[in-house]
């Protein structure tokens, strides 16, 4: 009985901690304004939509890797997938949960857009460094 209880409680707590951790990672990018070059590159307006996440992620993957943001992108990617399933399941039964999941997915898309912005800046810096080091 005790291992069953420990397993169930640990699983519930793990999901809660994971959701909070991803939200804390998203919080760091929430206030960041998107630059014009990112909006132009992704073809989005002033705000990003929940479904834009994959598009931003594909663009992020096209840029040279920056190890500093890799772990955050992976964690948010897993969180986005979890939210996607939750939004689908709750759409018909609990609309308030579906609406919350949609807002969170939008936050994930914004995070991916900010990551793209950083990677574009990183790529430009690399290019400038290489250009300046040429004889």
């Amino acid at each position: 009985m005790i291992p069953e209880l420990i397993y169930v409680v640990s699983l519930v707590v793990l999901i809660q901690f994971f959701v909070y951790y991803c939200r804390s990672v998203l919080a760091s990018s929430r206030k960041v304004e998107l630059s014009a070059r990112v909006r132009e590159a992704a073809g989005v307006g002033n705000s990003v939509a929940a479904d834009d996440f994959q598009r931003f992620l594909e663009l992020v993957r096209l840029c040279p890797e920056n190890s500093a943001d890799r772990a955050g992108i992976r964690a948010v990617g897993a969180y986005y997938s979890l939210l996607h399933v939750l939004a689908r399941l709750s759409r018909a039964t609990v609309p308030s949960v579906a609406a919350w999941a949609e807002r969170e997915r939008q936050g994930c898309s914004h995070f991916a857009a900010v990551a793209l912005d950083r990677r574009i800046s990183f790529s430009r810096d690399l290019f400038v460094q290489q250009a300046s080091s040429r004889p």
Partner: protein
Amino acid sequence: MLGPVDYALWIAGFVFEAAAVLSIFYRKAFARYYSICLYMACTFFVQGAQYICFLKFGFRSPQYFHLYYYSDSLLTILLFFVVMHLYLLVFAGMDTDRHIRAGAVLLLFLTAALSYLVVRQHRTHLTEHFVVELGQGLYFVGTVLTYILWGAMIKLRERPARLVQMVLALGIYYSATAGVYALRDLFPAWRAAMIWVPPAANVWLSLAWTLAFLRTREEASVMVPTLAAKAR
């Protein structure tokens, strides 16, 4: 026999534990987070000792088995002191929460002392079932303590963003490991399929703490219930 995944987790553990210690010094945060630095340094040296033991005696040897589970239990107790320190950091400067602090400290000391005595008593016949049960209990106490700490942080509202990320990362580590130990207790035949989870959780913890030190400024704070960055 160890596979490429086991070696990869071992190397990643080594690298990120060293990175966590170095990032604490790089951010000049040793005075505030000395317990985390000490824990990460101990994990690094324990992994080194385990590797030497593995090379000398082999993965299936009783020497490696004893060293692995004995050091794992002691590291878990050491991690309790990190939790205690995190409690002190969260409740820093609050006179009204003296009782909560005293209770947490007492609980941690009792659990640590009891676990140490139990392990000491069983050190000559450290069976696999016993160590799995002990690990399950210790990690579950850690999960509960971290959950209580997180609940208190939600009540306190505004907390440093770095502390928030560290507590959440620790909660993920504890709950994942406690869950896997419970599964191993329930289904001993699945041992081989779950053996990589504790090292992976260890890699996660050291990586998440390294990132918390490198990417989050000490002075940045968040509103914990909503996890929104506080405007400055």
